[in-house]
C-alpha cells in the first residue's frame, strides 16, 4: 500500500483527527485528503498540457508543502524536494541534472521521489526512490519505533532531507498527528510546542541533542512522562551522550538508526533493550539483509534500497547488496559496529559535505593558491570542516567568509583554517586528505 493510500484510509477512519499542525493552523485527516486530492487534480491538468514529469521545489516546514508533496505522488509526478537553505548555484546544478536526465526517470518502476545527496565528487547525486521503497521504509521504521495512531510527533528536522521527510511519511501512514516546527534553533519555543501540543515523540540528529543539552541543560527531563519515543540518526553519537539521554528520559523508547538516502534505516538500535551494545549501530531492520564484505564494506539488501541514481551513474552493488561506502564488523549476536568510511564525505551534524565542493570554492578566492578540507571532531556537530590553505598572501577570514556566503551553504563553511606551505599529495598529484586528519 502506498503512503497516499494509507493517508486516504486514515481520512476515512479518523476524519476529524488532526493530521498536521503548524503554528495556529490545524488540518484534520479529512480536510488534508481533500486538499491533497484537489491539488493533485490541478497538477494533473498542468502535467497534461506541459508534459510534466517532475516538480522541483524548495521545501518548507508547513502544511502547504505536505499537500504539494503527497499530491504530486497522487498525480504521478516525481517530487524533487530540496532543502530550503540550498545555495542558488546548487539549485541550478540540480535543475540541470534533472533536465539532462529526464528520460531515465521513467523506468518500469514508478519513481516517487528524487532526493539529491552529496556525492564524493561534489556533484549532486539524484537518488531515485520508488513508491515501494518509501512504503517499505515506513513499514520497517514504524515496526521498530512502535509509534501508533495515538501519537503526536514533533517534526523539527528539515523536510528537505531524507530523515525528516521519512518521519512525516511514518506518522501520516500510521494515522498519527505531525506537528511541524522550523528546526531546533529556538529550544524555548520547541519545548513550548512539545508541552502545548502534548507531543509524544520526536526525531533528531545527535548534533541537535548536543545543542539541546548545551542550551537547556537537563530541562528535557520534564517531558519524561510524556515522550513515548525518540528516533535518532544520521551521524555518530557517543555512548556518554546516549546514556545521558537515557538517564533523563528513562521511560522513553529511544531508537537509533543507521541508513543512507539510498537505503533508509537499514539497522536499528534500541537504547534500553540493547544497552550492552550501545557502541554499535544495532541490528538489521526487518526485511533487510546486511552483509559485511571481505574488505569490511557494509552492503545492504531489501525492498527499501533505492532504484538507482538519476544521472546514469552506476550504483555500486555486489551480490545484490548495495555498497554503502561505510566499513564495519558484525559480532556473534548480529550487532554491527562502524569501523570507518571508504568515501571522503564530511558529516556535519548529519548533513553531508563533499570536501571537493568546499575546496573548489576556496580555490576560486584570489588569495588562496590551493586548499584541502577534512572533517575534524566537534563536540556539538560530531564533525565540522577544517580547511588547510596554501596562500598567495595573508587571508582576511572575515572577507573570505563574505566570499563564501551564497556560494555554499553555511554548514559547509570551514569552522577552522590552517595555513600550510604545501599539501600532502601522491606522486600523481592527488590530495592525500587522510594525512591531514
Amino acid at each position, binding site marked *: 500500500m502506498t503512503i497516499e493510500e494509507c493517508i486516504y484510509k486514515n481520512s476515512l477512519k479518523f476524519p476529524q483527527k488532526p493530521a498536521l499542525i503548524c503554528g495556529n493552523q490545524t488540518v484534520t485527516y479529512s480536510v488534508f485528503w481533500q486538499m491533497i486530492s484537489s491539488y493533485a487534480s490541478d497538477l494533473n491538468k498542468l502535467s497534461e498540457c506541459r508534459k510534466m514529469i517532475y516538480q522541483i521545489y524548495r521545501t518548507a516546514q508547513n502544511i502547504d508543502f505536505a499537500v504539494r508533496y503527497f499530491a504530486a505522488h497522487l498525480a504521478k509526478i516525481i517530487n524533487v524536494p530540496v532543502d530550503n*537553505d540550498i545555495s542558488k548555484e546548487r539549485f541550478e546544478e540540480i535543475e540541470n541534472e534533472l533536465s539532462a536526465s529526464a528520460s531515465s526517470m521513467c523506468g518500469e518502476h514508478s519513481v516517487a521521489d528524487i532526493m539529491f545527496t552529496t556525492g564524493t565528487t561534489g556533484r549532486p547525486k539524484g537518488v531515485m526512490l520508488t513508491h515501494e521503497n518509501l512504503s517499505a521504509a515506513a513499514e520497517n521504521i514504524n515496526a521498530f519505533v512502535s509509534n501508533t495512531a495515538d501519537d503526536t510527533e514533533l517534526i523539527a528536522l528539515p523536510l528537505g532531507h531524507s530523515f525528516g521527510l521519512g518521519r512525516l511519511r511514518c506518522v501520516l501512514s500510521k494515522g498519527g498527528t505531525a506537528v511541524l516546527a522550523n*528546526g531546533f534553533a*529556538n529550544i*524555548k*519555543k520547541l519545548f513550548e510546542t512539545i508541552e502545548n501540543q502534548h507531543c509524544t515523540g520526536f526525531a533528531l540528529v545527535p548534533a541537535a541533542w548536543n*545543542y539541546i543539552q*548545551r542550551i537547556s*541543560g537537563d530541562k528535557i527531563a520534564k517531558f519524561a512522562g510524556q515522550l513515548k519515543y525518540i528516533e535518532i540518526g544520521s551521524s555518530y553519537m557517543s555512548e556518554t551522550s546516549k546514556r545521558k539521554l537515557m538517564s533523563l528520559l528513562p521511560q522513553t523508547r529511544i531508537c537509533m538508526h543507521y541508513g543512507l538516502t539510498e537505503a533508509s534505516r537499514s539497522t536499528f538500535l534500541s537504547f534500553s533493550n540493547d544497552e550492552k551494545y550501545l557502541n554499535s549501530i544495532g541490528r538489521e531492520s526487518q526485511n533487510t539483509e546486511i552483509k559485511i564484505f571481505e574488505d569490511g564494506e557494509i552492503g545492504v539488501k531489501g525492498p527499501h534500497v533505492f532504484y538507482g541514481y538519476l544521472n546514469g551513474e552506476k550504483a555500486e552493488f555486489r551480490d545484490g547488496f548495495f555498497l554503502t561506502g561505510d566499513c564495519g564488523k558484525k559480532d556473534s549476536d548480529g550487532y554491527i559496529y562502524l569501523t570507518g568510511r571508504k568515501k571522503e564525505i564530511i558529516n556535519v551534524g548529519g548533513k553531508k559535505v563533499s570536501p571537493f565542493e568546499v575546496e573548489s570554492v576556496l580555490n576560486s578566492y584570489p588569495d588562496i593558491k590551493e586548499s584541502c578540507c577534512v572533517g575534524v571532531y566537534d563536540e556539538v556537530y560530531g564533525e565540522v570542516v577544517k580547511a588547510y590553505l596554501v596562500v598567495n598572501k595573508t587571508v582576511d577570514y572575515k572577507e573570505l*567568509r563574505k566570499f563564501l*556566503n551564497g556560494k555554499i551553504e553555511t554548514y559547509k563553511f570551514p569552522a577552522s583554517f590552517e595555513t600550510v606551505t604545501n599539501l600532502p599529495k601522491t606522486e600523481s598529484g592527488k590530495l592525500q586528505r587522510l594525512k591531514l586528519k
Partner: protein
Amino acid sequence: METLQKIIDIVAETLGIEKSGISGESSVGDFPEWDSMGHLSILNKVEEVFEISFDPEEMMELEDVNDIVKAVKAKQ
C-alpha cells in the same frame, strides 16, 4: 546602547550578514544563517568578548538580540 551595538556587531560578523538588517528584535531563526549552529557561535562569541559565561538555564531564554543585551548587562 553600546552593548546593543556590540551584540549587533557580533551577530553580523558571526553570521556573515549586514548590520543594517539586524535590530534588537532580530531573533534566532529570522535569517537562514541564524540556525542552531549560528546561535551557538553567537553565544560563544558573546561569552568570549564580554568575558562572561551563561549557564544552560539562562541560554534557553536568549531568543533575540534584546534578550542577549539584557543578559550581558546583568552580568557586568
